[in-house]
């Protein structure tokens, strides 16, 4: 429905000691509709802050984000978020979690139930509608989180290290699921991740961010996500091009970290 435009976004936090932390400095980019973006970077480079501002939980101290033509000023149903720990409501069942957004809106009950069934099917949790959430494993909880976010048909999907807490096997399955959803819904998806492999696989575009101050360091355009739609991700991960790109980016990040660690004094 719309492009995400970042216009010289700045975010400065005040620390307890009286100092400031420049979490984001002059971040500008345009994310076209339907693109799959992954954001990579060492700790403290401002990835989560970026996502929080896009989601509307924080206001930037300078600059602004625009979705379509509207400035982002608060949370909304058009930007769905999937959290690292799921942030599910453990007092509700799976179905109640998934239809939460629709219930808050007051949608028709029958419609809602149908949609819940649909989405549980897509994420692979058919039949789990009445299970209390706290009885699910980590992977299943993340799938519920995905369903909960996607059922509301948001324009922009934000994911904050969604697969970080999962084991390797589940992680691979979930990566395939994300790609599948991207293919089937064609939505704009922005994923933050720690893992270089995941960033490469789940990104048409890849932003590498650097800390202190947080900024966009480098941008890549990658073919692996497209490939992932048709080819088995494991094969992609073993391909030559993938390994080379991975080495390149890893080295870059290490150099960047050394620069920063060696150059500036350890303030924290």
């Amino acid at each position, binding site marked *: 429905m719309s492009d995400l435009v970042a216009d010289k976004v700045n975010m400065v936090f005040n620390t307890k000691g009286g100092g400031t932390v420049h979490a984001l400095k002059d971040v500008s980019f345009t994310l076209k509709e339907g693109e799959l973006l992954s954001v990579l970077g060492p700790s403290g480079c401002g990835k989560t802050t970026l996502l929080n501002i896009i989601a509307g*939980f924080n206001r930037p101290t300078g600059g602004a984000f625009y979705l379509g033509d509207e400035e982002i000023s608060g949370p*909304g*149903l058009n930007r769905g978020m999937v*959290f690292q720990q799921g*942030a599910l*409501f453990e*007092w509700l069942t799976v179905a109640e979690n998934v239809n939460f957004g629709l219930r*808050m809106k007051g949608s028709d009950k029958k419609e809602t139930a149908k949609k819940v069934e649909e989405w549980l099917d897509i994420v692979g949790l058919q039949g789990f509608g009445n299970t209390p*959430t*706290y009885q699910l494993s980590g992977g299943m909880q993340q799938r519920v989180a995905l369903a909960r976010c996607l059922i509301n048909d948001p324009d922009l999907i934000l994911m904050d290290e969604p697969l970080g807490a999962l084991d390797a096997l589940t992680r691979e399955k979930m990566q395939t699921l994300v790609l599948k959803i991207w293919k089937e819904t064609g939505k704009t998806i922005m994923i933050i991740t720690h893992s270089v492999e995941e960033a490469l696989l789940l990104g048409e575009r890849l932003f590498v961010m650097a800390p202190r101050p947080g900024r966009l360091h480098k941008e890549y355009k990658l073919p692996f996500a497209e490939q992932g739609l048709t080819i088995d991700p494991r094969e992609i991960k073993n391909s030559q091009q993938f390994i080379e790109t991975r080495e390149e980016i890893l080295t870059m990040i290490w150099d960047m970290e050394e620069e920063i660690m060696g150059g500036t004094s350890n303030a924290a």
Partner: protein
Amino acid sequence: MIVGILFIVLICLVTGAILYGRRLVRTEVTDAVFGNPTRALGGWHWIVAGVSSILIVWIYFSWDAGRAFFPTAANELCQVAKLNRTANPIRSAFPLEDRLLRGTALLERDYGQIDVLESRLANANFNDTDRAELKSIIEEMRSTLSAQANPALMDPETAGRLDEIATRINMLADNIADDNYPAEPDPNRAEALKQPAWGATSTEIPPMAMTDLGYKFSKASEVMDAISKDFSKIRNNGETITAKLEALKVRYTSFEIDETEGEEITAQRKELVKQIEKIYRRIDDGKIFPSAMTQSVETALINLDDVQKSEQGTLRYIDIFALPGGDILAGNRACSEQGSGRWLPKPSDTLNTFIRMADPDVGYKGIPLLWYEMRPVGQVFEILIPDWIADLVPGEYPRHDDEGTVLTNFKNKVYNFATGKYESMLIPVPMGHIWDSLMRVLAGLFFGILLGVPLGLYMGLSRFAKGFFDPLIELYRPIPPLAWAPLILTIFGIQDDGKIFLLFMVAFAIMVISARTGATGTQLSKIHAAHSLGASKFQIIRKVILPNSLPEILTGIRIAIGVCWGTLVAAEMLAGTTGIGFVENVARKQSDYEIIWMTILLLGILGLMFDLMMRFIIHRTIPWRGKG
């Protein structure tokens, strides 16, 4: 008998539980490491063992077990106590219980006082002649004392009387050892057997002898009583000693105090002479005997003791083992339990009292413990619906018309409804001490939750609310609720309102803090998630923060119930006309230990029921706690 059987059953339960527990540990697959909480699951056999142990201790130390197995023991021990009581006046003169012979003790005391007097004389203000005279008087007192201890100076008649006492005691001992004593059967036996049994009423132990052994001791005590009285009349007043005493008296009464040297000195001198008179009065008591002369009585008493103990036989062991921690004393007309048997009422007595009081026709002070009465529905509504609701109805109250008829309109009808003035059917409404107490706690709790939870949530979410209300709540919270009680009594009077308000205050602070903790403890990611799912602020409070705070709120309720329960009883003790605390208070004033213990147990059990109910509710409402 029931108690006896119960006692044995409980002991078997405890041993059984221990054996079962040991077998369980041996046969259990023990790969659960120490610290694993699932290892502490189950364990019903230990609950059984614990409860049984408590009951065993209670039954034993309250003498209920003793009474069940040896029902006549107390009555017999009472008779033995009678013998001891009548023998006391003589026994106390000899080193049987005390360390010193009475004569020795008296001599020590009197010599000591004379010494003190002498040293005072040395420092007192007398002229030399007077001083010499007084000194000699004091010397004379000393020698009079030592004369009383001199066997040569004792009147042979006194010695004879002492020996006679010894003989009588020895005869009594022989009688006690004799199986056929007393020869005649107990004339009062029939009446004695009609006495209420041990514990049947509040007169405790039946004082009249009900067994032959008891009767023997009872008769012996009568004889002993006579002997004691005669012994008390014996005085060591032989001729020589009496003469010495009289001479001494003459000397000090005729001593003239020199009053020429001023008031103060005169007063001092008078005081000293008065001291001499005091000591004299003690000396002429006549209770000091030469120690060899009283030896026979002493021996006789020891003999009596031995005989008496061996005659008691198993009764002594029953006293030591089955009636622990106390004794049975005999007064002039009644026998009483002393020690733990006194202040620890027996379980069977407590149960009987409870059953008696639970009968709605009996109750306590005319009000049953827990019952119901039929009241018109209107009265119930009258309490629940406030009167001012009628004022809100638009319109005016009716007036009378020209013919004096009172018209009615809707507003009037609402008013009548709110004040309960209409015909209605009867419904059963609970009443009684227990209900009143419960109702007060529940009412206080209800208002505390109603007002406390929203405020607490508000304080957790709003800077203004937190800053504004925090000082007020934190200031009044640490104050013990009872400190407010006098104030509340003055404002509300002794009706229920005041107590409910007090409980409300207690519950309110707890609920505010619980709700606040719950609100601030909600994970930010959940709130963000709800936000990005399109929930409004109000929806977030209702659908995210409130369910998330349920664990803290329910725990708060559980705590509040406990504290309210404790405060309630104390508040009822302060002022009130009904309620369990009131019952206990009145029972305390009347020293009715059984009722006191009954109320204590009742309070404990009711409190436990509350807690178990809350645990159940918590388990059902928040199953996700601690998981996931």
